[in-house]
């Protein structure tokens, strides 16, 4: 009887541990899977074309948007991210940590000057190398993803919006 009870306790403990481990690591595994599927280079932005049914890297793609996606790695120091937001169409810049959490977002209405410039660092912003005194964002993880969404409000604006899409750059400092 004692032996069965011991086995039951071990079974429950292992099951609970496995349950929480899977819950905990799933976001990071999903993120790694997306990076592997996308075959993109870290710290190099990828400029998407109009999304179609052929795009199967990320679930629930929005066909109304142009995207700029960049997997980042801050091991070698901070990154400077720049770009220009469109005058009227919706646009947002968002950052996701290694466990997929959207920890930062800024949209076109919050960027009235339309010029977008930030310093992304893993270190404390107070001690980060920031000679240009850019808005500084601290990433909670060394690796993560940057994503820009630009709404294609009218098909005739597509080419102009593609030019705007290409203004988003990522540079090592």
């Amino acid at each position, binding site marked *: 009887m004692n032996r069965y009870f011991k086995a039951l306790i071990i079974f429950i403990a292992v099951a609970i541990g*496995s349950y929480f481990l899977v*819950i905990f690591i799933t*976001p990071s595994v999903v993120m790694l899977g997306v990076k592997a599927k996308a075959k993109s280079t870290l710290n190099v932005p990828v400029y998407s074309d109009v999304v179609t*049914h052929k795009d199967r890297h990320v679930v*629930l793609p929005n066909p109304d948007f142009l995207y700029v996606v960049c997997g980042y790695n801050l091991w070698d120091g901070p990154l400077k991210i720049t770009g220009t937001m469109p005058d009227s169409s*919706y646009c947002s810049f968002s950052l996701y940590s290694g466990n997929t959490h959207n920890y930062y977002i800024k949209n076109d209405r919050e960027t009235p000057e339309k010029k977008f410039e930030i310093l992304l660092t893993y270190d404390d912003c107070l001690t980060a190398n920031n000679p240009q005194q850019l808005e500084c964002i601290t990433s909670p993880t060394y690796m993560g993803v940057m994503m820009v969404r630009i709404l294609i409000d009218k098909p005739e604006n597509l080419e102009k919006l593609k030019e705007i899409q290409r203004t988003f750059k990522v540079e090592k400092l």
Partner: protein
Amino acid sequence: MKKYILFIVIVAGVLCGTGIAIYNIKYWSAGDATIVNGSWVGKNLNKVGTDRLLTARIAVSALFALNPKEVVYLIAKDDKDGNELTAENDYLIKGIPLDARYWSITLYDENYFLVPNTENRYSYNLYNVSYESDSSYLIHISSTRKNKNWLSAGNKGKFYLAIRMYHPEKSVYNHLNKIQLPVIEKVYSHE
């Protein structure tokens, strides 16, 4: 305890815990939703990042979702009568413009990807939907082409609809369970 019994107990524990975790991540029911409005359900994404189960669920079923300050996401898996949406039927979505800076209704297959179709049309939004004279709109979901506001769900299998509301008005945020959302009605069955 003999070593092989211990091994079996540990393997059984790992399989059980892992299986329950995967099931919990993958299959969340309307009962888990914090927003329920007709066919449309949604989750309060404020806790993504701190609520580990919710973070895992979003990573699997809505990766790169934005925080709710920016956008409200709602999903429909059933029609107004509570029956699963399937490509074997035709549906009519009847709605009025949503109170947001930008809104859209997008159709996804059961794996949450876009469905191939001859028009490369996967969604309608406030700019490209054709409105009726009373400012409402009707969107047809059918395997056969329609003249306007047509979305294809393919020929077979389940599908889902997603509403996105970017920068919704405060009244929308405060009454997500009550605002008037599009009604999804089955109009024809090919079976």
